């Protein structure tokens, strides 16, 4: 098991390197110039040249990359061009906010998805199954931004039950209750798609497991139906886990639409703003952090997978 994990960790390093190259090159290939956006249209040619040199943007891309990577390895992700602060603390705080939102959304998505999926698989052909299929289909198809806006209109602006945006109450207490209050609407908006996907996965792998031969053998041994279903659920879990891990990974990358609609100060919002400002170091740092989060989530999933299914422990 430990060797299995070490190998996975070893595999994560080249993955991250690859990701960093792709981000670095992509950002520099797409049109747009940080110098121009910093100086504005009135900047002189001389000022432009000096700033370009200051920012190290005059060197060839491979040279810039190696230099950047050298700094990254030492924990320096550069300075924000727009804010003139270190990029890492800025991105890190945004990531923590995204993490809060993601954990909430992941809990809703995983618990809800499992409940709906198990319902659909075990009450086949009945009302409950139709209901759960409809809910999961709806949640996959409904765009996050429209769901978010609808929630704001009906539950926030109309009734004032929930705040319409932000993460904490700027005035007054901002304890856990306040955070939770702010979490509901963006959390549910962000949870819908993964919830639907997880529900469908749970349903299909649960049905697979229930049609396996060992289920009939369990019944032939006089094991009561609820225990038989528990065996089937256990067998369905590994594939559900893989899908759920992927979905949580996406959430951690920042749920851009949700964060914009609810002005949630997360990674998605920060990267989105940095792109419009051509703030290259922040974009790079943001994408790198979310890639790292994705890799870590996958490591956790692999470890859990190994715990759940002895056949893949090698």
């Amino acid at each position, binding site marked *: 098991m430990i060797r299995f994990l070490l190998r996975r960790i070893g595999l994560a390093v080249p993955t991250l390197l690859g990701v960093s190259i792709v981000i670095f090159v992509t950002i520099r290939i797409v049109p747009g110039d940080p110098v121009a956006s910093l100086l504005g249209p009135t900047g002189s040619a001389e000022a432009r040249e000096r700033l370009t040199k200051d920012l190290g943007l005059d060197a060839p891309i491979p040279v810039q990359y190696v230099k950047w990577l050298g700094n990254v390895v030492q924990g320096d992700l550069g300075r924000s061009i727009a804010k003139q602060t270190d990029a890492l603390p800025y991105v890190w705080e945004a990531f923590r906010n995204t993490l809060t939102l993601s954990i909430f959304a992941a809990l809703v998505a995983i618990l809800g998805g499992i409940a709906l999926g198990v319902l659909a698989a075990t009450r086949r052909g009945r009302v409950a199954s139709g209901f759960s299929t409809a809910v999961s289909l709806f949640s996959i198809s409904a765009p996050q931004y429209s769901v978010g806006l609808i929630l704001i209109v009906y539950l926030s602006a109309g009734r004032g039950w929930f705040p319409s945006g932000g993460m904490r109450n700027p005035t007054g207490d901002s304890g856990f209750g306040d955070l939770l209050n702010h979490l509901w609407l963006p959390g549910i908006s962000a949870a819908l798609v993964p919830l639907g996907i997880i529900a469908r996965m749970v349903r299909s792998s649960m049905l697979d497991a229930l049609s396996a031969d060992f289920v009939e053998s369990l019944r032939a*041994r006089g094991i009561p139906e609820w225990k038989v279903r528990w065996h089937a659920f256990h067998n369905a879990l590994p594939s559900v886990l893989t899908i759920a891990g992927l979905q949580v990974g996406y959430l951690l990358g920042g749920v851009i639409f949700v964060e914009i609609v609810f002005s949630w100060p997360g990674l998605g919002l920060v990267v989105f703003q940095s792109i419009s400002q051509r703030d290259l170091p922040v974009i790079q740092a943001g994408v790198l952090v979310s890639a790292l989060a994705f890799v870590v989530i996958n490591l956790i999933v692999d470890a859990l997978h190994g715990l759940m*299914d*002895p056949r893949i422990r090698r």
Partner: protein
Amino acid sequence: METATPATSSVVAASSSPAAASPDGRDGTGQPTGAVQPTLRISDLHTVFRSRGLTVAAVRGVDLDLHPGEITVLLGESGSGKSVTAKSVMRLYGANASFSGAVELEGRDLLSLPPKEMLAVRGAEIAMVPQDPTAALDPLRRIGAQLVEVLRQHKVVPNKAAAQARALELLDQVGIPDPKRVYRSFPHELSGGMRQRAVIAIAVSCDPKVLIADEPTTALDVTVQAQILDLFQRLIAELHSAVLLVTHDVGVAEEVGDRVGVMYAGRIVEFGPAAEVLNTPRHPYTRALLDSIPTPGVERGRLRSIVGQPPVSGEIPAGCAFGLRCPHAFARCRSVDATLISVGERRQAACHLLEEEVSA
């Protein structure tokens, strides 16, 4: 249940066959009827599946008695209804299956038992050894846990520690050389033969009165097959269970069977002591079945396959179900169904040709 056979048992299905009047349709037991009460008595069992408006009669009137310590074999091609008969006994089918007739375990009719009581019968009083041991075990649970689960479920042991001790004992009993290791193993860590031994250990864990083995050796290597069959016979001698063994393998039937019933299209067409039925078959189908088996070292020219296909369960022809493929069929076979009649001591067959012989 002294001497008389139940009224339902003698005539397999509605038929106008005169010779079917033979009163002891059950005399294939090999013992004088009534001397020993059978552990399990299947009477006129019908199993019908319905799905999407389609009705399939998979078992069409089977009578069978199982006696303690005896292996009764159901032999037939796939689709003959032998496995369905076995699983019907345990009521292992969902809502789309319906049963009629009776399956009596020591006088208690299982077909009319409430589901909850049936649950207590399965695994404890009637246990099953399934076809493929690899598929029969939960791949994510250790062998020990799966044994303990059954022992605890049927409360044959007072507590968990006793269950563990008993599980190790059972693994040893089925000839597993290192019970402690196997107890901790996952199914994928064992060989096919070891897995089948573990599955057998689970099946016999609660000292079942009836053991149903559905093609127990089909998924195994020939050499392992022989070991498993030996083990099987040894255990049955020890436990004194009544065994219903379902197989398509004539060799297996000959090797371990005490009595054999040959099934075709949902019915038993020939029944009697295994050696007699397999050496001197009376029914044309049994003969055809035996003729289609290759024998090593014996030069017989081309193997004779049976012409045509077995009828699809939904579309059984009028008259004898084997009529269309039978080389000896005559007019009567196409219009009147044949029923089991006594054809000599302890033997039965369902064929119009034999009816004439008997009445002549």
